[in-house]
C-alpha cells in the first residue's frame, strides 16, 4: 500500500572498500546532528547523521555528555559506599545495578543471602523491569508521534513508583538491595495494593494494544524497518528483547537462573522478524510475563524471615583478593558486573556491562544507513538503550 524503495540512483557508487565517498562540498550531503538535546534521543547522546535528501547515508554515535566516572569513583569508595552510587548508572531501571553489585560483593566475601531477601530482590527486579518497559513502549510510540501511549504508560509507571515508594522509601533511586540482603520487609497490605496497580496496568495495556499495536500507521512504520540480521547477534553482543525479536530465545532468567527464578513459572516470548515491530512486540509480551511473575512472587512470598545476612563492620570491610562476574536479565538484555578485589577496603575494579553499550554505539551505526531521518528516533528507541550505562 505504502511501499517505499529508496532511490539510490543519485548516490555515488561505493568505493572498492565498500565505503561511500562523502564530499560535503558537493552539496549533495548534509550533516545533521540528532541530539544530545532531541526528543527523539533516548537520553544524553547524539547521532551525527549524514543525509542525502531525507535518506540517512551514514550515522555516527557520540557519547560523552553524561560522563560521571562511576567505575572510577568506586575505586575510591568503601564497599558499602558504592551501594548508593550504583543505582545512578541506570535511571529507569536502577535496581539491576543494586542487585548485581550486591551479589558480586556477596560472592567475593562469601556471604549467603537469606531466602526472604532473595524473594524481595526478585520482586524488585520485576517491578523495575515492568517500569522500564513502560518507558520503552511509551517512548516507542512517542518516537512515532503517538503521544497518548506515553502519557498513559507514564501514569501506570507512576502508580508502580508509588509501590516502590512504600516498599523501599524512594521512587527512583530505591537503594533497597544492599550487600548482605535488603533493607526491609513488605509493608502491610502491599500485595493488595500491588494487585490494584497490576489490574490498572492491564486495563491500560489493553488500550495500548488497540491504539498502538493494532494501528495501521504504527505497523507500517515499524514492520521491516531496522532489521538486525541474527548473524550479527553474536559478534555485536546483542542480547535481551533485541535478540529475542530475531528468534533467539536468550534470557539469563532461564539460561542461568539467579535469585528465585528457578522457582517461578514463565515462558520467554520471542519473535522472528527482528525489526522494530518485532522488538517492541517482544517487550509488550514481556510486560505480561512480568505482571505474571510479580503475582507469582507475591503469592509465594515467604511469610517472614531475616532480611539481612550478618556482614562485617562496613566501615572497614575488606574483601579478599578475587574476581567475579554477576549477570542478570534486565529489560534491555544481559546486565553484568565484573568486580575485582585486591584484599583492600576498596574495589580494585568495577566494570559495568550494560546492554546499551553494545546496542547503542556500534550496532546503531550499522543499522542507520539506508533509513529515513524520521525513522532514526524509532530505530534508536527500538534498541531500548539508556546512555548512562554506556558512560559509567
Amino acid at each position, binding site marked *: *500500500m505504502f511501499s517505499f524503495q529508496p532511490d539510490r540512483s543519485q548516490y555515488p557508487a561505493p568505493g572498492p572498500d565498500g565505503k561511500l565517498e562523502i564530499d560535503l562540498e558537493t552539496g549533495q550531503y548534509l550533516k545533521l546532528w540528532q541530539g544530545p538535546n532531541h526528543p527523539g534521543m533516548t537520553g544524553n547522546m547524539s547521532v551525527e547523521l549524514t543525509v542525502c535528501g531525507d535518506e540517512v547515508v551514514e550515522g555516527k554515535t557520540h557519547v560523552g555528555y553524561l560522563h560521571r566516572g562511576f567505575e572510577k569513583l568506586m575505586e575510591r*569508595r*568503601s564497599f*558499602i*559506599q*558504592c*551501594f*548508593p*552510587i550504583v543505582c545512578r548508572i541506570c535511571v529507569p531501571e536502577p535496581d539491576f545495578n543494586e542487585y548485581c553489585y550486591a551479589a558480586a560483593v556477596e560472592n567475593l566475601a562469601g556471604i549467603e543471602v537469606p531466602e526472604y531477601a532473595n524473594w524481595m530482590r526478585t520482586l524488585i527486579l520485576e517491578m523495575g523491569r515492568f517500569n522500564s518497559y513502560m518507558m520503552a513502549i511509551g517512548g516507542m510510540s512517542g518516537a512515532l508521534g*503517538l503521544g*497518548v501511549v506515553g502519557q*498513559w504508560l507514564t*501514569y501506570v509507571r507512576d502508580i508502580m513508583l*508509588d509501590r516502590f*515508594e*512504600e*516498599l*523501599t*522509601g*524512594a521512587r527512583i*533511586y530505591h*537503594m533497597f538491595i544492599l550487600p*548482605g540482603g535488603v*533493607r*526491609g*520487609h513488605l*509493608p502491610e497490605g502491599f500485595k493488595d495494593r500491588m494487585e490494584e496497580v497490576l489490574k490498572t496496568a492491564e486495563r491500560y495495556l489493553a*488500550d495500548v494494544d*488497540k*491504539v*498502538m499495536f*493494532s*494501528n*495501521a*500507521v504504527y*505497523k*507500517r512504520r515499524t514492520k521491516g524497518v531496522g532489521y538486525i540480521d541474527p548473524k550479527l547477534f553474536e559478534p555485536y553482543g546483542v542480547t535481551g528483547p533485541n535478540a529475542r525479536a530475531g528468534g533467539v530465545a536468550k534470557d539469563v532468567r532461564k539460561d542461568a537462573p539467579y535469585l528465585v527464578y528457578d522457582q517461578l513459572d514463565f515462558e520467554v516470548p520471542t519473535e522472528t522478524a527482528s525489526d522494530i515491530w518485532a522488538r517492541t512486540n517482544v517487550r509488550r509480551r514481556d510486560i505480561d510475563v512480568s505482571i505474571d511473575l510479580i503475582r507469582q512472587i507475591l503469592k509465594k512470598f515467604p511469610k517472614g524471615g531475616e*532480611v*539481612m545476612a550478618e*556482614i*562485617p*563492620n*562496613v*566501615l*572497614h570491610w575488606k574483601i579478599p583478593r578475587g574476581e567475579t562476574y554477576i549477570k542478570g536479565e534486565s529489560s534491555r538484555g544481559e546486565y553484568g558486573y565484573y568486580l575485582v578485589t585486591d584484599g583492600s577496603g576498596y574495589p580494585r575494579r568495577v566494570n559495568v556491562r550494560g546492554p546499551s553499550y553494545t546496542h547503542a554505539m556500534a550496532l546503531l551505526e550499522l543499522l542507520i544507513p539506508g533509513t529515513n531521518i524520521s525513522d532514526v528516533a524509532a530505530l534508536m528507541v527500538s534498541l531500548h538503550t539508556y546512555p548512562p550505562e554506556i558512560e559509567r
Partner: protein
Amino acid sequence: MSFKDVLSPFTAWKHVLETPVTIKDPLTREAADRYRGFHKNDIELCIGCSSCEAICQNAAIDMVPVKDPKEGDSGLRPQIDYGRCCWCALCVDICMTGSLTMSNEYIWFDEDPDAFRFIPGVDAKSWDSSEKGYRREGGRRLSGTERVEMREMEPDLRIGNFDEIVAGYDRAEAVLEADRCVECGLCVATCPAHMDIPDYIKTIREGDYEHGLELLYNSNPFSEVCGRVCTHNCETACAARHEGDPIAIRWLKRHITDQVPYDRYVDIVGKPDLAKTGQKIAIIGAGPGGLTAAFDLARMGHAVTVYEEKEKPGGMMRYGIPEYRLPYESLDRDIGVIEAMGVKIKCGVRIGKDISMEKLKADNDAVVLAIGLHLGRSTRVPGSESPDVEKAVELLRRITAGEEVPVPKKVVVIGGGNVAMDIARSMARLQKQRHGEVGITVTALESFDHFLADEEEVVESREEGIEILDSRGPQEVITVKSGKNKGKVKGLRTWRVDSIFDEKGRFNPHYDEGDEMVHDGEMVIEAIGQVSDVSLLGEKLTEALEWNRGRVKIDHDGRTSEPWLWAAGDCVKGPDVINAVADGHRVAQSINQVLVAMREAKA
C-alpha cells in the same frame, strides 16, 4: 494489516470521559511511611561519634561542635548539606545510638541556599516531630553488636589455685571483636592515659601486632597489666554500647601483648637516642604512677632511681591485685621494659627510715612521691580492735609476700568494692586448699544497683561459692566474752541499709535497726577503703606542704607546693592503675620542663 487497524486507534477517545489521574495538589501529597525524607536527630541521644560522617560517600555530613564534650559524647553533631546528600540513609543505618532518623517530609522552599546546610535536631525544622519516615528494620546491622565472649577457666578448676582465669582471645576471636570498632575515638578522650585505642585495634585487624605494641607502650608502659586489670573507662564511653555490647578494648589490648614475643618488646618500644642530661630524679614508690614517670623520664635522658619499700616493685599491682587476675610474670614483663630504659629500682628501701627526705632532696634535681594507698581503713565498730579482724590490703600483701596467713573455715568480709572481692576470692582459694571448701560471706553497704565492684567480679565470686550480701551495714564485731577463747571473733552483726544516698545524691547510708543479722565467722576482714601512709614525709615536710582535703595538694601538672617535689598516682588521685599511669606521664612532662629550664639557666 486491515481496515480494523485503521479504526482501532480511535478507541482512545473513550478516555475523554474518564476522570483525570493527575495529582491536583502535588505540594501537599504525603510521602509513604518509609520515605527517606529530611533528616531528624535526637540531639540528647546522639553522642557525636561521627559514624554518619564516616559512611557518607558524598561527604555531605560534617561534624560540628554544638555542646561541651563530656565522657562518651564528643559534643559534635552532624551537619548535613542537602546540596550533597543523596538520601541513601546509610547514615541512619550506621548510627550507633539510633538517634539519626528520617522524616517522610520532602518539600522545603527557601531563598537562601545556605539554609539547606543544617544541623538536624539543633536547627528546628517543621518535620522534627514527624512520626513517619525511614526507620532501619531490626536495629543496627552495619557493624557488629555482640561482643566475642572471653573464655575463662571453669569455677571448679580455678577455685583451688591462683592460676590466671581469663584465657585471652585467639587471633580469630580478636579480629572479630576488633572488627566491631567504628573508630570514633570517644574512648581516647575518656582514657586517662589517652591511649590510641582505635589505632591499636586497627593493628589487630591488619595483623600488624608489632606496630600495635609500639602504639600501646607509647602511651602506657603497663600495657600487659592494663590488658588484664584496667578499669576500662574506655568501654563505658564506647559508641557500640548504646545498641549492643561495648568493644572489649581491654581484652584486645591484652591480645596484642599476647601476640608479640617478649624478647621483641624492648626493640619495638625502642629507647630514644638522646644524650644523657646528667640530671637525677628520685621516685618514691614503684607502683604504676612512679614507674610510668620513671619510664618517661629515663627516655628523656635523665638518671632515674625508684625507691621501693617492699621486696619487689609493682606496688598495688603486685601486692593488691591477686595473681589469678594479674600473673606476676605479666607485671614483671612490663617492669622489665621499664628497667630496660635505664631506670634503677631499689627495693627494700623505706624513705624516711633508710634514707631521709632531706637527703633525697639534696641528692636529686626532682623527687616524685608515688606512695599509693597502702593502709587499710577500719570501720572502728565495737570489736574491730580484735586481732582476728584484718584489713584487706594488709592481708593481700601478706599473701603475695608468701607469708603464713590465718585461714579459718568461716570468714566475713566488710566491703563491696573490688578489693573486697579480691580478698574474698583469695581467701576462698586458700580455704579450698586448706579445708576443701569455701566459707566466705561478703557484706556490702551498697545495694546491687549501685555496687562498687565490677559486675564480672560479683559473678565470678558467686561462681566460686562466695556469698555476697548487699545493703548490710556493720554494727559490731562479736567476740567471745568469756572462757579460754575470750576475745576471739565469733561473727559480725549488721543492720540493713534502707537507703544509700542522701538528698544531694551523696553516698550516706541510712540503717534499718529492725533488720539485724549476725554473720558467723572466725575472722572479719575490713575492705572498706584505703589511706596513704604519709608518715614518711616527716613532721617538718608535712607542715611545709600544702594539703587538699587530706591529700598532698598538687597543681595541674602534679607539682606540690614544694618546688622540688611532685606527687602522682593513687596517693593524690585515688585508686586506679590507668589513672596512675596518666599521672606518671603528667609529672614526667612537668619535671622535664623544669629540668630543661634549669639546664638552660645554668648554660
